[in-house]
């Protein structure tokens, strides 16, 4: 009896490990984001440029007819860009903003288009804020909570403040890349079983803008 229980206990880490592994991304996006400010210092919207990995880019281009093989013009990609813009709504554009702790919403995207370079598609679009707002502290999270998509802010110049008031400071917190493997399976891993509900949050890119 005691032996059986001990064996059962031995199996636990195996099972826990197996289940908390959860989903892993199927799509990778390298993102550049611009925060757009009006002259009076209100935030009017966010302009994203998301570059997809080559496998997903190839997948997305499936069935799209072009005049020249392997070359996709902006016009030829227009229907796909529209599909993208429309489907993103379901996921709240993977863009979550808080102004001094209050959730802010975005309108449907405008000025969206795709371009294709080096076997990679880049989706450009602008999200207008539902109501432009001022904030002492703006927090913008870009991530997929289901982690089907892995968002990484681009290595170079990932976030730009466009027309931001004087003295605003931007800080980018990148997600942990998960490679810090030194941390062994510890008590907390078990205790925080519920925390996995926020699974995708661990992969959020957190942009914080503090303005005077």
């Amino acid at each position, binding site marked *: *009896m005691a032996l*059986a229980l001990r*064996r*059962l206990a031995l199996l*636990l*880490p*195996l*099972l826990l*490990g*197996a*289940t908390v592994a*959860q*989903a*892993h991304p*199927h*799509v990778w996006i390298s993102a550049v984001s611009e925060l757009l400010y009006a002259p009076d210092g209100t935030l009017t919207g966010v302009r994203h440029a998301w570059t997809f*990995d*080559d*496998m*997903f880019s*190839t*997948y*997305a*281009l*499936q*069935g799209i007819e072009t005049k020249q093989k392997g070359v996709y013009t902006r016009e030829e990609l227009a229907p796909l860009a529209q*599909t993208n813009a429309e*489907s993103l709504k379901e*996921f*709240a554009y993977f863009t*979550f903003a808080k102004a001094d702790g209050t*959730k802010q919403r975005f309108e449907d995207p405008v000025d969206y288009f795709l371009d294709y370079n080096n076997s990679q598609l880049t989706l450009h679009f602008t999200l207008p804020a539902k109501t432009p707002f001022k904030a002492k502290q703006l927090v913008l*999270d870009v*991530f*997929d*909570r*289901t*982690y*089907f*998509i892995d968002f990484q802010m681009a290595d170079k110049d990932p976030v730009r403040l466009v027309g931001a008031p004087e003295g605003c400071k931007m800080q980018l917190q990148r*997600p*942990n*890349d*998960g*490679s*810090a*493997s*030194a*941390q*062994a399976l510890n008590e907390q*891993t078990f205790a925080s079983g519920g925390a*996995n*509900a*926020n*699974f*995708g*949050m*661990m*992969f*959020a890119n957190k942009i914080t803008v503090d303005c005077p």
Partner: protein
Amino acid sequence: MTRLSPLRALAACFALIALFVTVDGAIHVAMAQTPFGGPRPAPEPQVGGFVGWLLARQSEFYREISTTIRAAKSDGSAVWMLLAISFAYGIFHAAGPGHGKAVISSYLVANQETAWRGIVLSFASALMQALVAVAVVAVGAWLLNVTAKTMCGAEKAIEIASYGLIAIFGARLVWTKGGAFISALQADRRQPALAAAAHQHHDHDHYHGHDHDHHGHDHVHDAHCGHSHGPAPDELAGPGGWRRGLAAVLTVGIRPCSGAILVLVFALAQGLFWAGIAATFVMGLGTAITVATIAVVAVFAKDVARRLSGGRDGGGALIMRGIEFGAAGLVLLFGAGLLFGYIAAERTTCL
């Protein structure tokens, strides 16, 4: 065998259920969303240790698949590399959601199934998943040259059908197992000792193959025989049970893995569709190994519970029926949760 106090048996029962819930994995991914659509405020992000390591491996393997397919265009030997990576990816990936671990394990626990049967079901459903993925891409992309939007739409439709089937399958299991559980409850309340003695002869009908050879000394007194509402255990695990097992394979196997579809479309675009197909089947093999391992663990865990509760006359059967009923309920909950979007992590994301 020493007799167990009811309390200890109950504790063991709870331990098993806790274990099972873990196997299920459903709880972890459920309801990550607030009613306002935003993410919940999260505790400090921490992706370390084993979890982080697993995730990192999966991602690495998956990303290497596209690189290797590209390489295979000019260098044929890269295909071997592709197959090796796909196999490893399958093993790791199946630990994540969506490969029927929960459904198959719950099914095995709900019924009097053997580990061997679990292995067969795991491999059959993984094979079917691979076949469906290849069929979707062969017909959609290769034959009809539809757009990704159409293909992803088809994938979603299949997905919803699969979740619906899981829910129906679970409802059916709940119906039969609920009957057995209620019978066991009634028998237990009426005259446990007598019921136990009277049903001693029934033992051999309930267990099959090595299952009963190893544990001949355990007497699980099937309290519901004689006034059964659901099918008797031997009906479930006997030759007819294979048909029921087929239902499990269909519900799980009908849903292709989105990862496989991406790989197949990519391979097709590179002019190496056959390599993509080979990779998909090898991936399925890896998946099957992981799912089968978890299924065997689930069967073993139930076996432990049976042994622990076996010492109690009457009550042991009640506990076993309770566990089976619980497992059946999990299948139903799981299917319903997937269907209505409470479990979001398994959704195909169409962009």
